């Protein structure tokens, strides 16, 4: 019969068994988040690559920029400002767009991929709850990705500023007008504020929805996430000849900026003409309805991950 001669009955094992082994929830969340960045390196590679390409293009076309700066004093004050800040707006806008793309594709894959490659059987063999897992996957697009885009945008805008200033000095022009017009510190802060509040919190229901569909769909989660919305638009159009639902989604998608600050254009260009209305945002029903909807979507995703049979 079995001779388990090498059975170890030493005292260290006893001691280990007696020790109450606990890992704090925060530590589990921290490692769950790190795991996501290991798996999805595009979360930071994509924005960095976009920033690098943009900075390169900006440096290569610096003579064009210098020309515009040189011409600025002869323009009307608002045109002056525009001539100087346009590349900075473009940089921030491009990074924001990148962030949205990366966030959406991340969410679509987040809960489907682990079922497709069956690695969910490994993840579920560990003492990490479905709640923690889904929460970590939601924190990425709703909180960490906007922060990351902010940091990259900040670095990009300051790099552009140094490149332009160095070029001005090298060609013997004055930097004083450029520096006073640009107000870069305030502009960077506005971009960060906009990203975290609008792209994270205001857009949260979209990410919640994509995660829910990712937990549910067996394949083609992206189509499943988009097509029902289009079907509902079409149905509303056919039945009532209205487009309230499309308008509502449109407001959610693009209306965030006007909730969190007032400004003349579409971008928080200049601090002098932009007013942060955070209190207004905090008390707007849109914020709280959005968060409630997000919570409902995430609760659905958690339930799906728990109830789906693994095989």
């Amino acid at each position, binding site marked *: 019969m*079995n001779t388990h001669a*090498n059975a170890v009955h030493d005292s260290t094992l006893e001691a280990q068994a007696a020790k109450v082994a606990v890992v704090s929830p925060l*530590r589990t969340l921290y490692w769950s988040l790190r795991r996501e960045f290991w798996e999805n390196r595009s979360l930071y590679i994509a924005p960095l690559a976009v920033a690098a390409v943009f900075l390169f293009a900006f440096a290569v076309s610096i003579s064009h920029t210098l020309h515009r700066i040189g011409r600025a004093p002869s323009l009307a004050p608002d045109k002056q400002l525009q001539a100087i800040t346009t590349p900075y707006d473009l940089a921030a806008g491009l990074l924001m767009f990148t962030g949205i793309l990366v966030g959406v594709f991340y969410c679509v894959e987040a809960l489907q991929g682990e079922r497709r490659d069956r690695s969910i059987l490994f993840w579920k*063999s560990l003492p990490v709850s479905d709640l*923690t897992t889904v929460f970590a996957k939601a924190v990425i697009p709703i909180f960490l990705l906007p922060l990351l885009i902010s940091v990259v945008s900040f670095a990009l805008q300051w790099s552009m500023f140094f490149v332009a200033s160095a070029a001005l000095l090298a060609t013997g022009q004055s930097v004083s007008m450029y520096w006073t017009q640009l107000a870069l510190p305030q502009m960077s802060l506005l971009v960060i504020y906009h990203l975290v509040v609008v792209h994270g919190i205001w857009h949260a229901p979209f990410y919640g929805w994509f995660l829910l569909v990712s937990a549910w769909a067996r394949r083609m989660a992206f189509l499943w996430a988009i097509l029902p919305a289009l079907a509902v638009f079409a149905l509303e159009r056919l039945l009532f000849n209205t487009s309230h639902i499309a308008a509502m989604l449109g407001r959610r998608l693009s209306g965030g900026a006007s909730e969190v600050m007032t400004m003349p254009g579409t971008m928080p260009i200049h601090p002098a003409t932009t007013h942060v209305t955070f209190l207004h945002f905090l008390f707007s029903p849109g914020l709280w309805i959005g968060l409630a909807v997000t919570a409902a979507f995430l609760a659905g995703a958690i339930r799906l991950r728990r109830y789906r049979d693994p095989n």
Partner: protein
Amino acid sequence: MACIEARGLRKAFGTTIAVDGIDLQVEEGRILGLIGPNGAGKTTALNAILGLTSFDGDLKVLGRDPWSERERLMRDVSFIADVAVLPRWIKVAQMLDYMGGIHPRFDRAKAEGFLARTTIKHTNKVRELSKGMVVQLHLALVMAIDAKLLVLDEPTLGLDILFRKQFYDSLLNDYFDGRRTIIVTTHQVEEIQNVLTDLMFIDRGRIVFRTSMEDFEARYFEVTVNPDRLEQARALKPIHERQVLGRINLLFEGVDRPRLAALGDVRTPSIADLFVAVMSHQPGRAQGAAL
């Protein structure tokens, strides 16, 4: 306290009944082999034990309800459900960091010790490893967890014989300490015959046979009968009869060994032979049910 206690465990998928009222008690320190044909309900039963699927009936694992307390239970239970379920994008070093980060009973030094015996490097990604190496990695991770219950569902499927042998050797030599409990399902029963302390056959969602290996070896004998003693041997009511290369092997239950020795060569049957014998006695099951 029993490690696993189930009463009337049942699970249906629509009209298909995967597990049909299983009563089960597994004490601490046992190594139980769960054997059954494909679709017998083994994996479903294990999934219920691991909190991966909901179920009807009573089930307690280490005193907890696995469905409502999976996260808590997984501190004391580890499992390898199927080969090659490790995420393919992860690096070995990341895996060790992650396990150390989230698992209260993971001993990183131990895992590194096991890995040092293999050719797996810390910089390898799982996708760069062969199937056998992925299983080695998974086993190293699991053996570094100080768990009370380890569940292995077809852990060596598709591996070559060297890896399979090594797998069970490591498990016995480096992991099993007489107090942990191990449940294993496999189709390669001959490899675990000397590993198990308990044996259970499951068919169509029910347990059809169970024994400890001590009883198995004391109660069941296979005899290659001398042709001139065949009638005499058949009179002792063998539970199964098969022909191998023109010789007749009879399987007996509960017949004294000395009496059988007079009829021919006596030995302990293989689990596979006993399985075939038991299955052919199942109502509605054709002779020679395949493993």
